[in-house]
């Protein structure tokens, strides 16, 4: 029996601030254990928390980007529990009086779009890291204590594993795009907890279980599949699903039950007396709303509609906040040079393909490439030359490299490097004749029907002309020779 899964997420994003949430320790990763702490995040007697204003800003930006209602007044609470990597014995969190309520995210998955509702967004501090070792003492590194976290709680609106992964990818895109988080999941800056249940045949929700600690899209997919299978098996066998919290272990590829408690946790929440309420004036929220740039989904849609780009190309351009403004400027330049709208997709391909590839190869940061090495007008000019037929594909690539490495005018480079496409039949006939003279065996075999030699001979002519020969003309000439017509 197929039972519909009912899936929700808690997304934990480390905020991209310079310092921790309640102290001035650097917000970074790596480094030697216990070298990025201070009296506040270490929980020394007498230390006090003070809220980082940038944490608040990024929280509000995320809330606005996800269409949630920002509370004009929110506060922090103490959530008490004993744990070795929780130095104060309580976590300072807005869980009970969050920064924002509601909101949603529209997600495109394969053929359709669906909406995931959000319950709330709130900010809180992260705890330290414990290394568990089989049969030995556990070790604790407090560096991560006090790193600012944004927690986003969704409604259980997701109905398939594919949709779940699509949601996770899209929310990451939005948060990265707005500068809220680095989104580097392998570094732990974005973590997912999921809750999943199987709907009963009458449509009522089943008992949900939580699977925590999912740090990659792959593990989200794997964990959900595995948990759905586990619950299905239990129900199929006539049993019930018990509420459980499981910890995903990536290495083992399975979810293990967490240490069971004798009683469910009593966190004894109460308002944090060391921190005044967070009071936000409307003017401030509006100010931050103004900073929000167009979000990925809207941008992708517009790029497709306005420039005729495919889904894939639009997605790649929209994925990196640096490329859309560049692309749009270049597209405008190209339209001015070649009032033929169909050239823009070609431009897009050149941007995300050869140009980005070259930047990576040369080890030059993309920002530098886009700003000075190959500014939008320069790329537009190059693409225009290609579209006008003056360069072959190979020639254009050579020109791109030269344009990257020097500051010379493109026109001058084309001349200097002899990149003009050679279409003149007379000229090419001479080269073809010369190549055929040097390869009489191959010509004979071609004439006897070995078709694959067309490519070989064309290739020889291309090499002789440094890639600048018009391949169409060369092909025709070789084919003619194959038919026995003398050049």
């Amino acid at each position, binding site marked *: 029996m197929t039972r519909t899964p009912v899936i929700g997420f808690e997304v934990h994003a480390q905020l991209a601030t310079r310092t921790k949430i309640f102290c001035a320790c650097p917000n970074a990763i790596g480094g030697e254990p216990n070298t990025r702490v201070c009296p506040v995040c270490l929980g020394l007697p007498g230390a006090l928390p003070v809220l980082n204003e940038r944490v608040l800003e990024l929280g509000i930006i995320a809330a606005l980007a996800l269409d949630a209602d920002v509370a004009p007044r929110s506060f922090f609470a103490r959530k008490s529990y004993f*744990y070795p990597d929780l130095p104060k014995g309580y976590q300072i969190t807005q869980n009970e009086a969050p920064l924002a309520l509601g909101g949603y995210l529209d997600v495109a998955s394969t053929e359709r779009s669906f909406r995931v509702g959000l319950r709330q967004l709130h900010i809180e501090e992260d705890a330290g890291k414990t290394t568990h070792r089989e049969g030995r*003492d556990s070790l604790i590194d407090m560096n991560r204590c006090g790193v600012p976290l944004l927690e986003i709680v969704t409604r259980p609106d997701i109905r398939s594993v594919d949709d779940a992964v699509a949601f996770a990818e899209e929310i990451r895109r939005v948060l990265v795009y707005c500068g809220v988080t680095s989104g580097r999941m392998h570094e732990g800056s974005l973590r997912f907890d999921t809750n999943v249940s199987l709907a009963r045949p009458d449509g009522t929700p089943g008992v949900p279980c939580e699977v925590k600690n999912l740090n990659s899209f792959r593990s989200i997919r794997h964990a959900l599949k595995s948990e759905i299978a586990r619950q299905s098996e239990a129900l199929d066998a006539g049993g019930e699903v018990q509420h459980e919290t499981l910890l995903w272990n990536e290495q083992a590829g399975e979810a293990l039950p967490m*240490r069971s408690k004798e009683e469910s946790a009593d966190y004894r929440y109460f308002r944090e007396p060391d921190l005044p309420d967070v009071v936000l004036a409307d003017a401030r929220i509006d100010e931050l709303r103004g900073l929000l740039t167009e979000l990925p989904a809207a941008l992708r849609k517009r790029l497709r509609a306005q420039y005729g780009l495919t889904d894939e190309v639009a997605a790649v351009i929209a994925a990196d906040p640096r490329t859309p403004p560049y692309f749009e400027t270049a597209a405008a330049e190209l339209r001015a040079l070649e009032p033929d709208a169909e050239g823009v997709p070609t431009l897009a391909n050149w941007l995300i393909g050869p140009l980005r590839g070259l930047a990576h190869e040369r080890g030059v940061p993309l920002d530098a490439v886009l700003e000075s090495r190959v500014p939008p007008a320069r790329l537009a000019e190059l693409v225009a030359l290609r579209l006008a037929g003056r360069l072959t594909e190979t020639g254009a690539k050579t020109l791109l490299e030269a344009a990257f490495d020097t500051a010379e005018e493109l026109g001058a480079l084309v001349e200097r490097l002899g990149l003009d496409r050679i279409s003149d039949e007379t000229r090419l006939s001479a080269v073809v004749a010369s190549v055929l003279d040097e390869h009489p065996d191959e010509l004979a075999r071609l004439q006897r029907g070995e078709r694959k030699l067309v490519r070989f001979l064309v290739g020889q002519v291309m090499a002789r002309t440094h890639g600048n020969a018009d391949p169409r003309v060369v092909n025709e000439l070789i084919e003619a020779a194959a038919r026995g017509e003398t050049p």
Partner: protein
Amino acid sequence: MAVSIDEARHVARLARVDLSDEALVKIASELSTVLDHFASLAGITDEPDSLHPFEASDPPEADHAPALRTDEPGETLSREDTLAGAPVTENGQFSVPGFLPDES
């Protein structure tokens, strides 16, 4: 309002304080006495409460700047200072008897 031994034991567990049975009996009795005396508080006002924002004696003034910090890095403790008071360490980390990850 009597506090039972079981309740006292539960609270001691929540607070992670080791109390002998004898101490539990004594403390349950002391808590009962104190809380009885404090029962006068119930119903002092009709206000509902729970996690209501606690209003400070002065309502926050409109132009009172919120107590926020700028996002500028400051000094951290040296590793030496961080670990100086630690009862048990290993390889620069705090050490505790091994345990399974906990639901939190």
